[in-house]
């Protein structure tokens, strides 16, 4: 995904910093670049890549073998595909003020359905069979999205509860589909989705890019992006302004689940083993991390798809850096958790208040508001 970084949010990021009263002179170019929401994520990504490059000079080389690209950076792009697919949907859900904890389980269900179908099919190697398998996997993800969306938007259940039901029960369902076995099949066209190349670029990268563009068009070439941000910022005010938050929320959970299903297929295709217990385990954490790294606040509102892309790249670069620096790989989840906590705290308005006013003003949030 080292391709051109498309500017996906034409109207938002270039706006001048909000806190500046108009009377003041416009901030300098350097200052505006620094205050751009992509600035720090990109700096972090570049720093990581440079560090890895210093440690291991071959890190930066990309070579052309049999017309296909190879190299560590290509691997990073390939590894970014799954988290990016998850994070694109998650970013939309988070923008509405929700969360989808079920993405990992949906990955497992979709892959289980696809591979179980292939396993039973007469000719698993044919392209059409593989296509049906993918469609079935995505269809079951659609069902999961419909369920999540129904719970959240129609029944009004808190998002984390609604999706947690599927997160736990969904793995049970995946186990039921695979009968508790690790289903393994062979199908060249299906495997191609995970480990093939198109025009020299790994297929997962192509799939992720197509989805990125599709989601970007869906939210930024229509009013969907603005409306779901408005839901996330102020639901009641949005309702009174005619925003159909029920439909939009529902749609967003469906999109998120569809992308998760696709991610499951892409993730499982190289090995073609449906391990219902482990596929997608803790992947919701990866997705959330990509989203917050990209500058989207977990409390909802403004979201940044371009930032999410950078977040996904940072995530897989870290995973690769761990190998390069010979750090025990068990540390990675801990590191991810710390990153999420730090970013959450950094985003908290309370911290800014604290930095501005000094420790004396750090008060509990329960400042009573009395109607007057």
């Amino acid at each position: 995904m080292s391709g051109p970084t498309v500017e996906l949010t034409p109207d938002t990021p270039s706006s001048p910093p909000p806190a500046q009263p108009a009377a003041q002179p416009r901030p300098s170019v350097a200052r505006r670049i620094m205050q751009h929401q992509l600035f720090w994520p990109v700096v972090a990504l570049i720093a990581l890549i440079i560090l890895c490059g210093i440690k291991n000079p071959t890190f930066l080389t990309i070579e052309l073998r049999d017309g296909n690209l190879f190299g560590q950076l290509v691997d990073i792009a390939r590894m970014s595909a799954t988290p990016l697919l998850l994070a694109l949907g998650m970013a939309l859900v988070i923008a509405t003020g929700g969360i989808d904890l079920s993405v990992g389980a949906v990955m497992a269900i979709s892959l289980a359905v696809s591979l179980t179908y292939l396993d039973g099919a007469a000719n698993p190697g044919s392209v059409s069979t593989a296509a049906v398998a993918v469609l079935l996997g995505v269809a079951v993800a659609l069902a999961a999205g419909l369920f999540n969306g129904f719970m959240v938007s129609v029944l009004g259940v808190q998002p984390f509860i609604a999706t947690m039901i599927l997160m736990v029960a969904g793995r049970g369902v995946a186990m039921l589909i695979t009968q508790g076995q690790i289903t393994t099949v062979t199908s060249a066209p299906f495997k191609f989705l995970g480990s093939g190349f198109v025009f020299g670029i790994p297929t997962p990268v192509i799939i992720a890019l197509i989805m990125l563009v599709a989601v970007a068009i869906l939210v930024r070439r229509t009013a969907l992006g603005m409306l779901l941000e408005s839901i996330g910022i102020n639901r009641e005010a949005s309702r009174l302004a005619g925003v159909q938050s029920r439909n939009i929320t529902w749609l967003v959970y469906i999109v998120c689940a569809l992308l998760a299903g696709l991610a499951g297929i892409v993730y499982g295709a190289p090995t073609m083993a449906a391990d219902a217990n482990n596929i997608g385990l803790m992947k919701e954490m990866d997705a959330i991390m990509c989203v917050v790294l990209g500058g989207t606040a977990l409390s909802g509102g403004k979201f940044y798809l371009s930032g999410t892309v950078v977040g996904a790249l940072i995530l897989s670069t870290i995973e690769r850096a761990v190998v390069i620096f010979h750090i025990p790989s068990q540390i990675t989840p801990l590191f991810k958790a710390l990153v999420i906590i730090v970013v959450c705290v950094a985003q908290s308005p309370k911290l800014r208040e604290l930095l501005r006013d000094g420790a004396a003003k750090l008060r509990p949030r329960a400042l009573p508001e009395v109607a007057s």
Partner: protein
Amino acid sequence: MTTTVQSQAPTPAPVRSRLSGLRRYLSPEYLPIAGTILTLILMLVIGEVRYGGERGFVSPKLFSNLLQDNAYLLVLAVGMTFVIITGGIDLSVGAVVALVGLVIATLLPMGVPLPLVLIIGVLIGTTFGFLIGVLVEYFDIQPFIASLAAMFLARGLCNVVSVQSLAIKDEGFGALAGWSLKFGEGRDIWKINLSMIIAVLVLIVAYVILHHTRFGRTVYGVGVGDGGNAVQLMGLKAGRTRLWVYVISGTCAGVAGILFAFYTKSGFNLTGIGMELDAIAAVVIGGTLLAGGGGFVLGTGVGVLVYGLIQVLIAREGLDSWWTKVFIGVVLLVFVVLQRAIAVRRRS
């Protein structure tokens, strides 16, 4: 409701608004708990009818087994009840259970004295609870996000401690885990072990705190849905209460981690995945409102029994164990939807 405000009398007439004793218990807040007890009875009847046979299904042994298998869950659910009554949530408890188990399994072979290890186990939970509480209270982060982050942190630490399953072979620990009082004879023998005693003690203490102390009543007050405004204006400590419920929940998770280690005699980094949902399910089945503000910790006890019975029935039916997850999901779904329905009806 018989609220009459007399307005014509020359001297101020007393404002009367009395509910008869019985009717008070028919008000909507008791509906969920009535559903819980009904569910329990229904399941016991089903069990008796299907598997009763000669020796009967419902027996002291059944309850002893239920409590023995779910002691850790009861402790978790009790802690979770505090948090949910304030309108919060703690998603970190399952991961904390796993972490405590691993730490115990790592420290004991290193020769650290058993009492110290147990204390450390509990304090790990307390620390996580405190962390969540601080994030929620002082940084104004939503509870599910703060506790989700803590869950990731605990799982990350688990991986650092070990990715293998570690058996706990310490003798003293084994003795504590194995100690029990036996009752009855022959095949009807049933026992009370340390885990059960601890779990029931935790339940009783929680009941006393929630229903008979100022702190406990403040917990309910915070959950009324105004962000602790009313409680604060009443001069009670809303912020401190909100911090404390997470400390309580974390501490309970620490205790539950020890009980779970008693139960499995091992530590493993993948234990307790989805355990937070089990605890939430037990609390919700037990009649506590997910939206906060209402519930009964004793109901949580019943909720845990219902949860245990589901597992027993699934096992007796010969279904695969992963059905349990699906079933718990469905039961939780039903109760969550039921609560929503009551809430919506009450508002209209």
